[in-house]
């Protein structure tokens, strides 16, 4: 419905001339101004715009930070402190970049959850979803690489843990190739800096494909039913752009609270200790946004055909990989969870499960939560974070591999509304829609 909706008419000789050669104004008009958008999109649907805003913040602050940062293992930590102390508003740039990463992930988790809730990955939006998962993967890689750059204790040892994980599956030769030597050292920092600068632009490129795919098939909406005509849609500009400006400002307020009043709340204190390859920290924690996957990795503390270490890495990679096939795992033809009473519960339990895993991933391994006894050496035993991680991992995979395929076969969905316009009117919206013919005779 979205393709070929162009209503652009060049207004003068120059734009007509340009339109026949490079229809760039037409392209902008069709995609940024007149793009028909379902009129019932709620606030959860604004996070795509918020994510683009996050990407711009990260790229702009990052480019300026890179002007002052020194990617050298002897100087990186000092250069970050130089930014914090001597560069004009360097502290603000760095705190924006640091917290910007967290807010980027908060937004992406809301955005993905919204997709899962409203079934936005279902036909014809499979490619749209897969491109989104690729962006998410690139974001995790970029976030991890950025985490290593200040060359703090956390940076250095985080880099060690993650590269060794890959080595567990791909072998020692691979790890050494990745490091550029026999340990995480200066060559590693320099290549990680280079890649950290590169990947955001790859994200930008895939985002363009993501938006292209979106604008080709059109937005999903909270009812999950396709718009049936112009009475169901409004042009992007000014309706949704006005909403985006408002929501992005609210998002920026929340962001500003962290940047200006709690800039280090989401980070770990060890980020302010200079990296020392001879001194292993007692506890190595990933960034919170990678916590869930780290928890799943550590959940596998047993051998099953494969060694626990390799199995753990496979489970962790599988947890991300499974997202690619979600469009084919869900057998229900109803998109929106608003009309799927059982899936609704399974979805919210999944969200809680992911939040729990994210928390568990940051706790020291083996932390006892509910003490039930005392081991021979006097340490407490009982329900520990690894048990929680195991339960959480089990539900994570069950949600995708069992619940999604089976629910479509057994769940009885609620009755879907006839159209978006009808669902809107039923909710008690008053007045006559401008330029839209409501169909009161079809009201139930």
């Amino acid at each position, binding site marked *: 419905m979205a393709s070929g909706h162009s209503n652009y008419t060049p207004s003068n000789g120059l734009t007509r001339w340009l339109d026949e050669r490079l229809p760039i104004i037409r392209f902008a008009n069709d995609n940024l101004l007149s793009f028909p958008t379902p*009129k*019932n999109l709620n606030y959860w649907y604004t996070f795509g715009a918020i994510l683009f805003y996050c990407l711009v913040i990260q790229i702009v602050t990052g480019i300026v930070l890179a002007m002052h940062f020194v990617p050298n293992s002897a100087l990186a930590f000092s250069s970050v*402190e130089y930014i*914090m*102390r001597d560069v004009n508003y360097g*502290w*603000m740039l760095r*705190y924006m970049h640091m917290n910007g990463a967290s807010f980027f992930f*908060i937004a992406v*988790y809301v955005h993905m959850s919204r997709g899962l809730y409203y079934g936005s990955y279902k036909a014809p939006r499979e490619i749209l979803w897969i491109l989104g998962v690729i962006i998410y993967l690139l974001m995790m890689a970029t976030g991890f690489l950025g985490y290593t750059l200040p060359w703090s204790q956390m940076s250095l040892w985080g880099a060690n843990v993650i590269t060794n994980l890959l080595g567990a599956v791909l072998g020692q030769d691979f790890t050494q190739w990745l490091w550029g030597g026999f340990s995480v050292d200066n060559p590693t920092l320099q290549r990680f800096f280079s890649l950290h600068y590169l990947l955001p632009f790859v994200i930008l490129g895939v985002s363009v494909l993501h938006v292209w795919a979106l604008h080709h098939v059109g937005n999903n909406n909270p009812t999950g039913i396709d718009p049936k005509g112009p009475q169901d849609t*409004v042009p992007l500009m000014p*309706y949704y752009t*006005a*909403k985006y*400006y*408002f929501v992005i*400002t*609210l998002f*920026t*307020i929340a962001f*500003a*609270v962290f*940047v*200006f*009043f709690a*800039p*280090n*709340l*989401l980070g770990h*204190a*060890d980020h*302010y*200790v*200079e990296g020392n390859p001879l001194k292993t920290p*007692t*506890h190595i*924690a990933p960034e*919170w946004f990678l916590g869930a996957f780290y928890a799943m990795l550590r959940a596998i503390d047993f051998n099953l055909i494969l060694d626990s270490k390799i199995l753990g890495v496979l489970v962790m990679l599988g947890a991300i990989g499974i997202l690619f096939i979600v469009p084919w795992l869900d057998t229900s033809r109803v998109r929106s969870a608003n009309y799927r009473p059982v899936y609704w519960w399974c979805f*919210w339990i999944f*969200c*809680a499960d992911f*939040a*729990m895993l*994210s*928390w568990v991933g*940051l*706790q*020291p391994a083996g*932390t006892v939560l509910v003490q039930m006894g005392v081991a021979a050496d006097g340490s407490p035993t009982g329900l520990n974070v690894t048990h929680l991680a195991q339960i959480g991992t089990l539900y994570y995979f069950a949600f995708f591999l069992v619940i999604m395929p089976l629910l479509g076969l057994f769940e009885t969905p609620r009755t879907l509304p006839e159209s978006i*316009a009808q669902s*809107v*009117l039923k909710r008690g*919206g*008053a*007045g*006559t*829609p*401008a330029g*839209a013919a*409501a169909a009161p005779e079809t009201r139930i």
Partner: protein
Amino acid sequence: MRKSIIAAAFASLAILPAAASGAEEPPHVDYSFAGVFGTFDPVQLQRGFQVYKEVCAACHSLKFVAFRNLGDAGGPHFTEAEVKALAAGYDVAAIDNETGEATTRKGLPSDHIPAPFPNEIAAKAANNGSAPPDLSLMAKAREGNASYIHAILTGYDHPVPEGVQVPEGGNYNPYFPGGVIAMPKPLSDGQVEYADASVPRTVDQYAKDVSAFLMWTAEPKMEVRKRVGFGAILFLGALSVLLYLSYRRVWRNVDH
């Protein structure tokens, strides 16, 4: 129902509890810089610098702090003359312009505070094999921030509990992870002569002052950060009201 689930999900994502380190929680200290309106007390920071200079500086460097920083507003705010005099009280390494030989000259405000030891090996050799860490960022590098430093400095007189082995050269301190710290008790009552006789000359007061000073060295832009933050949030708040009204106006004729 839905809202509470969402709220719970967000809360569990946002609140990241500190990792258990096996050490006692530092007791609460009322600092002037706590809270969103808190600012540093320049007089306290000046006292804290005095404690650093007369006690801590014997072993600990402060490499990210230059003398000029001590004159910053939002910091100890020494006068320009005081900063110059302070810097001139130190000899810093230099190269002789004529001969190219290593020499020393009087410190300038642009110099960083010289370290007590020429290198880490020398620092280790003089301190039982463990080098005293740089203090510039210490207040941010530990959970508990300034109050952790205060707790360590005042935590030496606790009796050693049963089952804790304090090895030769170690000292019991319940606030240090593991309970055994290499640093011997650094402060005692009356050790530092404050110019202001009304300020108590106690370990507790010294610890408060030097920990506040180290919070400043770790976060020297805190005051301007909070100030800019207030401006930003006031502006964004007003902007969001206007944008909300325009959003409502744009949608006024659409059922949605």
